[in-house]
C-alpha cells in the first residue's frame, strides 16, 4: 500500500538558515525578537515589557525597539484558531493584579458539561472522563484573546509587525542572531513584480520562536540544531465553525464515536466539541488524529456529517454560519517534546514546541506560561548575559512539564481501541501518571499506509444552510490571499494515486487536485495555493508548509 512518507517533499532545512546579508546599517536591530503573535509570543512580549518597566536601565541598553513581535497574518488574531476552553491560571500569573480574568475577552466560565458517545442517530450520555472536566475554566475565542493580548503587549512597549513572514533563521558561528523576513511582490514564477519589496534581516540578542503548530522556523531549528525528539511528533487536525444560533446553548459538549471509526483498521481518533459563546453564538469543531489511514477521510466533511446528527442539528437549526477555520494540534505530548527547548540565541515556546495536553485538549495556558518564562530567560540574558539554558530549566520545573508527564501515554492508550483506551486513560489519570505503558513505537503520521474505502459517499451534499463545501468555507475564513504569488507549499508533485487522493481529501481548503497521469503508475498533483489557510495538515502527511507572502491566509476574528 502506498504511503505519503515514500514521496517526501523536496525540502531542505538548510535553505532556510543563512548569515545576515543586508548591509549592517540596513539591518533592523531589536533587543528581543518574537516570531508569532499568538498566546505564547504575546505573553513573552507582555512579561518582557513588565520587566523593562521594573528595570529601565536595561530598556535603555536595548535601543529604540527593545522587543518586536512578527506575525505572518494580516493582524494579531488572523491566524489564531482553537476550541477553546482556557485554564486561566497562566493569565492570572502573567497579568497579576492589573487585570481580572473576568475582564478578559471571553464567554464566561464553564457551567455545565456533557460528554456523549454518538451513533448515527443517538447520543448516549457518558460520565465526563476525569481529564476532560472543566471546572474553573473559561470559554474563549483565541482570535479575540490574541487581539486583546496584542493590545496589552503594545501598551507595554512591544512593537507589533503583522503581515510579516519569518522566512529564514539568521545564524552566525552557530548562534541564532535573528531572522530574515519574506519578500513581497513576487510573481508565481518567482519573478519580481514592479512593487517588489525584499525581506529584511532583523537581528536580535535573543530570538523567541512562538510560531504555533508546524512552525516553519521551529522545524528548521529542530533540524539545524539536532533537537528533534526520538519519538516523532504527531498531529490532529481540527476544523471548526462559529455559528450564530437561535437558542442559547447551556453547556459545553464533547462527543466521541460517530462519525469516526476508531477501530484499528482506520485509526480515526478524535471527537468533536460544541461550546457556547455567550447566548447567541456557538463554536463547533471536529478534531481527528492525522494517523488515519483511509484516503477518503476528510475532516471538513466529517464535521459537515456531524452537523446532521439530531443532537447537533437541533443546536444549529435556525442559525447562521459566521466563520470557518482549520488548524492542526501537535498531539505527541511529552515524548515528542524537543530534546532541548533552546539553542544559542534561541528559545522555543508553546504549540510550536508541542506543549499540548491532548486528553484535556488544552495548550493555551502552557503557551502563555512558556512565553512568560521565555521572557524571563531572555531578560536575564540581555541584562546579565545569563545562559538561555535557564529557560529549559524553568520549563522543566514548571507545571507544564508536570502535566505533560502525567498524561504522557494517554494517546497511546487509545491505540488499543476506544473502550480499552478509555479505561486505561482513566487509570492513568487516577494514578496521576504513575502507570505507564512504557516506550511505545510511534510512527509519524505520514508513515501510515493508505487505503481507500467508500467513505466519501457518506459525506452530506452541501446544502449551503447547515452543511457547506470547502470553497465556500475558505471564503468564510476571510481568506483573500493574492493569487499570483509563488507557491508556498513544498510537495512532491508526482505521487501514487492513493496518496494524491489522500491529500485532496486531507486538505480542508481544497488546495490539492489530482492531475493527469504522470507515468510509472503515478499521477500529477495540482495546487491552488491561495486557498491555503495554513493549518499545517500537509506537513504531517508528506508535504511541508512554508509561510506565503506576509498578510496572506485566513483572517479569523471569532475562532
Amino acid at each position: 500500500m502506498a504511503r505519503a512518507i515514500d514521496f517526501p517533499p523536496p525540502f531542505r532545512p538548510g535553505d532556510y538558515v543563512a548569515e545576515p546579508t543586508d548591509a549592517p546599517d540596513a539591518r533592523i536591530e531589536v533587543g528581543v525578537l518574537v516570531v508569532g503573535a499568538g498566546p505564547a509570543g504575546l505573553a513573552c512580549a507582555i512579561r518582557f515589557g513588565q520587566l523593562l518597566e521594573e528595570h529601565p536601565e536595561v530598556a535603555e541598553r536595548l535601543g529604540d525597539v527593545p522587543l518586536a513581535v512578527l506575525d505572518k497574518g494580516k493582524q494579531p488574531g488572523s491566524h489564531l484558531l482553537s476550541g477553546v476552553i482556557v485554564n486561566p491560571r497562566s493569565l492570572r500569573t502573567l497579568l497579576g493584579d492589573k487585570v481580572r480574568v473576568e475582564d478578559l475577552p471571553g464567554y464566561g466560565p464553564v457551567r455545565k458539561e456533557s460528554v456523549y458517545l454518538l451513533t448515527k442517530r443517538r447520543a448516549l450520555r457518558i460520565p465526563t472522563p476525569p481529564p476532560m472536566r472543566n471546572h474553573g475554566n473559561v470559554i474563549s475565542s483565541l482570535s479575540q484573546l490574541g487581539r486583546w493580548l496584542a493590545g496589552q503587549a503594545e501598551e507595554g512597549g512591544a512593537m507589533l509587525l503583522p503581515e510579516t513572514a519569518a522566512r529564514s533563521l539568521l545564524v552566525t558561528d552557530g548562534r541564532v542572531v535573528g531572522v530574515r523576513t519574506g519578500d513581497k511582490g513576487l510573481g508565481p514564477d518567482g519573478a519580481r513584480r514592479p512593487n517588489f519589496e525584499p525581506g529584511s534581516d532583523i537581528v536580535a540578542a535573543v530570538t523567541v520562536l512562538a510560531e504555533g503548530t508546524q512552525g516553519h522556523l521551529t522545524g528548521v531549528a529542530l533540524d539545524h540544531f539536532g533537537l528533534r525528539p526520538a519519538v516523532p511528533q504527531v498531529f490532529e487536525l481540527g476544523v471548526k465553525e462559529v455559528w450564530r444560533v437561535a437558542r442559547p446553548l447551556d453547556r459545553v459538549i464533547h462527543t466521541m464515536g460517530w462519525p469516526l471509526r476508531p477501530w484499528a483498521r482506520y485509526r480515526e481518533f478524535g471527537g468533536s466539541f460544541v461550546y457556547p459563546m455567550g447566548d447567541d453564538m456557538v463554536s463547533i469543531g471536529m478534531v481527528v488524529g492525522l494517523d488515519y489511514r483511509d484516503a477518503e477521510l476528510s475532516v471538513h466533511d466529517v464535521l459537515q456529517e456531524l452537523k446532521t446528527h439530531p443532537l447537533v442539528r437541533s443546536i444549529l437549526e435556525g442559525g447562521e454560519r459566521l466563520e470557518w477555520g482549520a488548524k492542526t494540534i501537535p498531539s505527541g505530548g511529552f515524548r515528542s517534546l524537543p530534546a532541548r527547548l533552546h539553542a544559542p540565541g534561541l528559545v522555543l515556546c508553546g504549540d510550536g514546541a508541542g506543549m499540548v495536553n491532548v486528553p484535556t485538549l488544552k495548550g493555551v495556558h502552557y503557551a502563555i506560561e512558556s512565553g512568560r518564562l521565555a521572557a524571563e530567560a531572555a531578560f536575564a540574558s540581555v541584562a546579565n548575559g545569563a545562559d538561555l539554558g535557564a529557560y529549559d530549566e524553568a520549563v522543566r520545573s514548571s507545571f507544564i512539564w508536570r502535566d505533560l508527564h502525567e498524561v504522557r501515554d494517554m494517546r497511546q492508550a487509545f491505540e488499543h481501541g476506544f473502550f480499552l483506551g478509555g479505561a486505561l486513560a482513566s487509570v492513568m489519570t487516577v494514578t496521576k501518571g504513575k502507570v505507564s505503558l512504557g516506550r511505545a513505537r510511534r510512527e509519524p503520521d505520514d508513515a501510515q499506509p493508505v487505503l481507500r474505502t467508500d467513505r466519501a459517499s457518506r459525506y452530506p451534499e452541501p446544502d449551503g444552510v447547515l452543511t457547506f463545501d470547502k470553497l465556500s468555507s475558505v471564503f468564510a475564513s476571510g481568506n483573500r490571499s493574492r493569487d499570483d504569488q509563488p507557491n508556498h507549499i513544498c510537495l512532491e508533485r508526482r505521487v501514487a494515486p492513493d496518496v494524491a487522493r489522500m491529500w485532496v481529501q486531507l486538505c480542508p481548503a481544497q488546495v490539492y487536485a489530482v492531475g493527469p497521469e504522470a507515468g510509472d503508475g503515478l499521477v500529477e498533483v495540482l495546487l491552488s495555493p491561495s486557498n491555503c489557510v495554513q493549518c499545517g495538515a500537509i506537513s504531517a502527511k508528506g508535504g511541508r508548509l512554508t509561510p506565503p507572502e506576509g498578510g496572506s491566509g485566513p483572517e479569523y476574528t471569532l475562532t
Partner: protein
Amino acid sequence: MSAVVFLEHDGGELHKAPLGVLARAADLFGSADAVVVGSQATALAAEAGRFGAAVVHVADDPALDPALPAPRVDVLETVVRQGGYDTVLFSNSVLAADVAAGLAARLEAGLNWDLVDLEQRDGELVGKRPALGDSVLVDVGWRGTPRLALFRPGSFDAVETGGVAEVRPVAAALAPHSTRAILVDHRHQPDEGPKLEDAEVIVSGGMGLGAPEHFALAEELASVLGGVVGATRAAVYAGWYPASAQIGQTGKTVSPRLYVALGISGAVQHKVGMQGSKAVVAVNKDPNAPIFEFSDLAVVGDVHVIVPRLVELLRARKGS
C-alpha cells in the same frame, strides 16, 4: 415633484442610458425635463423630446464642448434655481459622477448614487441601491430639496414617445474656478476595447471549457455580442487565460448588463465578483452546478455544442 435629467451626447447622438433615466422619471413624475450642454445642444433637443422630455434646457456653447464637469455644475445650478426643480437625475458616467457631486456641494443637496431604481412612497422619493457586493438592496431617501440621484447605467430602458419638447436656452455664468481646468488633448479609445469593469457584456470561461484552446468559444461569443472575455480564478491558475481577465473575490468585480458563464461551477469566490450583473446566463454540463442558483437562465448542456450554434444564430440575427 419636478425633475430634470442630465443628458449626455457624443458624435451627434444622445447616450441611451440617460434617456432611460428620462423615461423612468417621466413615468414616475408624469413629466420630466432635460438638460443638454455643448455646441450641438439645440440640434439634440428634438431627439430629447422624442424620448420623453417635456422641456429641454440647452446650454449651446462651443466653449462647453470639452467634457469637463465644473462648467456643467454652473449650468445645472442655473437650471435648477431658475426652473425650481426639486429633483435632478443622472445616469452614471465618468462625467456625470463629477457633475452630480459638484452640484450636490454647490446646492447643499443630498446625493444618492449607484441607484438601480426609484419609487414614490407616501409622498417621499425612495431610491434603491445595491450594497455589500450587491448582496443586499438598501432603501435610501433624501432630506430636503433638491434631491440628486445618480443611477447605474442601464438601469432603465429608453422609451421613444415621439413627443416634441419645448427648447429653452440657458445662459449660465461660470464660477471663477470652473474654467481653470482645460482640455488640451483627446485620444479616442485605442483598439483595446472597454475595460472589464466597464463592459456591458461579459462572456466568462471556467475549467468546464475543458482545455485552454476552448476559450476561443468565449472570445467568439463575446465578439458577436460586443462584449469582453473574463475568466475564473481556476482557469487563470491553470494558465488558460491572463490574470487581467480574472473575475472574483481576488480578481475584478463587474456588473455588466449581461454575464454569460461558460463551464463555470459558481464557487462563492467567483460569485462575489459578478453577482451585480443584471442578467446571468450560465451554461454547464453539471445540473447541480452552484452557478445555476444565481442565474437567470440556467442551461444544462455542453458548451462545445451550444456556443458555436449560439454564435451562428446571433450572427444570422445581426445580418437580417
